[in-house]
């Protein structure tokens, strides 16, 4: 029986640490720059529908992205720009989806965060929270049938998403099947406007792990090094066949739920507490303290990423928009069985 004492405390891995950190940092920074651009396009009316940003969550998100490998399964959620890029999503595909380009992977049929390339192991979330837990598990069951080893499937969820029946059913099922699943819970203190006090009554979400018979890991989500270490360890344990891992990171959403939301409801005390730290600032400090990069190098990296982002959006914005006349208006892949009536 797992006891709460099994909850992992940070056990830093030291070899290749600098490289891993800097790789992850690059994705964090790219995500931030990408999202700032996206927000400005949204304000300029160039983005239709919702825009959901991850400011403050980039370290956690990147941590998972870099811990996964090609061949793994990854089902990110709302606030995972960093993880998506780290897992291999092209900047252009991200930009295209947000802009609605016909050439993007979602072809204007879906927008913003609802993107993915399932056959590449990069699953596309539906909005209904929690459902990806069982879906990733299903992907892992398929790998098991095929005799594929060394694979990990990971998905992300928020504090609010843990209240869904889907989350419960999925994690319980994965535990029964002892699948190499990693569930990363970003406890960013709010689900839209709802504080955790109205979402759950346990002292800590990681306490749920024991009730599923899975290993729980806890992190300060504002500490990039801790994120990389702990998420890395969880992924390694899953890969090693230790069964599902549940990682809970405490952090604060530093933006609104979406860009339409001014987040006035966020408790000021949280903002000024350590949980309100910007992980990107912390990363900058950790990097410069370790003398891995200096401030100028970071700034120039940022400039470079900024240029990449600008160029991706510039391309996406020039691309053709979806055209109803070019659509086949067919939900089935089996053409012969489609009705196509209106």
């Amino acid at each position, binding site marked *: 029986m797992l006891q709460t004492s099994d909850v992992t405390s940070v056990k830093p891995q030291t070899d290749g640490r600098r490289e891993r950190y800097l790789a992850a940092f690059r994705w964090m920074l790219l995500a931030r720059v990408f999202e700032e651009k996206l927000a400005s396009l949204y304000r300029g009316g160039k983005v239709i529908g919702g825009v959901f940003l991850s400011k403050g969550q980039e370290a956690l998100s990147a941590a998972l992205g870099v811990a996964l490998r090609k061949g793994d399964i990854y089902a990110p959620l709302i606030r995972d720009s960093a993880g998506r890029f780290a897992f291999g999503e092209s900047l252009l595909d991200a930009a295209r989806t947000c802009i609605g380009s016909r050439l993007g992977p979602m072809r204007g049929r879906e927008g913003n965060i609802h993107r993915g390339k399932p056959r590449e192991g990069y699953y596309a979330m539906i909005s*209904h929270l929690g459902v990806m837990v069982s879906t990733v598990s299903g992907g892992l069951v398929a790998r098991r049938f095929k005799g594929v080893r060394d694979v990990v499937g990971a998905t992300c969820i928020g504090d609010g998403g843990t209240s869904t029946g889907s989350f419960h059913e999925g994690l319980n099922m994965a535990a029964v099947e002892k699948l190499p699943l990693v569930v990363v819970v970003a406890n960013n203190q709010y689900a839209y*406007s709802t504080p955790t006090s*109205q979402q759950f009554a346990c002292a800590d979400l990681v306490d749920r792990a024991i009730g599923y018979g899975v290993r729980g890991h806890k992190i300060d989500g504002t500490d990039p090094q801790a994120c990389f270490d702990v998420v890395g360890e969880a992924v390694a344990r899953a890969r090693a066949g230790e069964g599902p891992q549940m990682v809970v990171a405490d952090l604060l959403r530093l933006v609104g739920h979406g860009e339409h939301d001014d987040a006035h409801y966020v408790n000021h005390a949280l903002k000024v507490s350590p949980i309100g730290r910007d992980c990107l600032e912390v990363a900058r400090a950790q990097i410069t303290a370790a003398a891995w990069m200096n401030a100028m190098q970071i700034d120039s990296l940022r400039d470079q990423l900024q240029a990449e982002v600008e160029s991706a959006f510039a391309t996406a914005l020039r691309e053709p928009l979806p055209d109803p006349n070019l659509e086949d208006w067919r939900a089935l892949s089996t053409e012969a069985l489609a009705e*196509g009536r209106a």
Partner: protein
Amino acid sequence: MAITYLEAIREAQAKLLADDPRVFIYGQDVGNFGGAFKATKGLAKEFPGRVLDSPISEDAQVGLAIGAAIEGMRPIIEMQFADFSTCGLNQIINHAATMFWRTNTKCPITVRLPCGGTAGGGPFHSQSMEALYAHYPGLIVLNPATVEDAYSMLIAAVHIDDPVVFCEHKYLYYHLKADALPTEALPIGKARVARPGRDATIVTYSAMLHEALACAEELAKDGWQIEVVDLRSVKPLDTDTILGSVARTGRLLVVGEAFPWGGVTAEVVARVATEGFSLLDAPPMRLNAKDTPVPYHPNLWGTHRPTARAIIGAMRELLHA
């Protein structure tokens, strides 16, 4: 002072809370935040303890409402989007809807579904789910198309002793304005002739009413008089008013924003065909959304759903049939 469809829904709830201590509201972010669309804005403050934030648990939200209703309360459940009500559907169709029939116990819950498409909404924030709920016995399914109905039908819904699925259309939230709140209203279950005519009938509901009216307006320029019937409730369905209109016009087009297989348009056409066959001077017609999920990009969305232009196209066909 103009009042929007959304404000009417807020005002109805304010009145319900003020008038009836049995009423409370439970939903995601409905409390201090006032709801994702602000349909409960200020209500938590005005009615302390009676507008409660729920966890993201649609099944439990409805379950809670059912228990409270058994004990005599009049809960209003807000789903953040109609699309997420699939997660609470089991409690609605199998628990709330069967309660009276099974146990002779009334189950007066109102489930508010912000439904229908808006630009950029995409497959999971745009659905019209009335067909799913109307299929199951034991539910009342309301679809207000006007500011006045949004207000009066929500008040009526909460007074009804049975479970009500209240489909409010997000596209109308801000687009639709009225001068004042109504003081009287048609009873629940009655359809309304929104525009009289004699050449053909359009039967429709919710946001499509306005596309239909625009079509009628446009065709009036050519001298056609199109009657438009606003169903108001899709269950019960006011077959008499529909048949009355078809008796006058002889021609029927039924327009809905939902998916094409089954649903309201099929039910209306089937009722007219079975009960008013001889009234028809031409084959009845249906216009629905396309048989794919609702697309995100407005370029596609504008073709996926019926629009005034599409309705005009269908109507010209019908008038010449």
